């Protein structure tokens, strides 16, 4: 399923990177531990997390994730937004909890692993 459709269904707010919404999402990965995401997420996954600091951008970039969903109405730090723009990483915001976002995303695309 394309990012655009997922953003619409999950009512996500696009914070940065709206130019690449036609990319296909390969699955999701929910975790707040950076090493876990680095080790276990897959190319094209949407990453669901409550982390808001700038180091999440390098992780998304390094693993070619399709984007990051920051949950629970949390706002990314200013330097996170700045870095996401520079690196062309899609940052999304949700008002819901990680459990709910993950459940809804699973309902839409299932697990490809």
């Amino acid at each position, binding site marked *: 399923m394309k990012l655009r459709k997922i953003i619409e269904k999950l009512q996500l707010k696009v914070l940065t990177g709206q130019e690449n919404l036609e990319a296909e999402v390969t699955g999701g990965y929910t975790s707040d531990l*950076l090493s876990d995401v*680095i080790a276990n997420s897959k190319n094209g996954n949407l990453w669901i997390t409550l982390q808001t600091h*700038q*180091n999440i*951008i*390098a992780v998304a970039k*390094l693993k070619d994730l399709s984007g990051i969903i920051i949950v629970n109405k949390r706002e990314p730090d200013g330097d996170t937004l700045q870095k996401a723009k520079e690196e062309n990483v899609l940052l999304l915001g949700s008002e819901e909890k990680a459990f709910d976002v993950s459940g809804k995303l699973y309902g839409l695309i299932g697990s490809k692993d």
Partner: protein
Amino acid sequence: MTMNNENELSQRFEIVGGDFSKAGKTSTSIKEILQEIGIDSSIVVRAAIASYEAEMNVVMYAQRGVLTLNITPMKLHLKLDDEGPGIEDIDTAMQEGFSTATEEMREMGFGAGMGLPNIKKNADKFEISSTPGQGTSLRITICLDKKGRK
């Protein structure tokens, strides 16, 4: 990037300890170089994971470090030497879940105790040595077989 006449490529990166604003820059550069020269994507992912964890260890614990990428037709080497506190007990540090990260780092999602084990898992050969009070050295080798290059 330097390329010698034996088809070897080598690049040196300096990493500054404590500078979280640049963390990930070295491993991202390494990934881009490997993609540019046409290394197979499964190898690129392994090298990216290993170099990210090596880089973050310098950022989190050391004063500074130098990571060198060296590629021969058959092998990819990552060599890291840092100046820092070193590791007292390497066997314990290699255990998954063991970490000396501060509370602040853990809140940021670091310090899962997965760094060194992640490096080892993604390497074909991994060597670590350390002198407490001086620094730590890592030697990571990933084999490039026929599938290593596109």
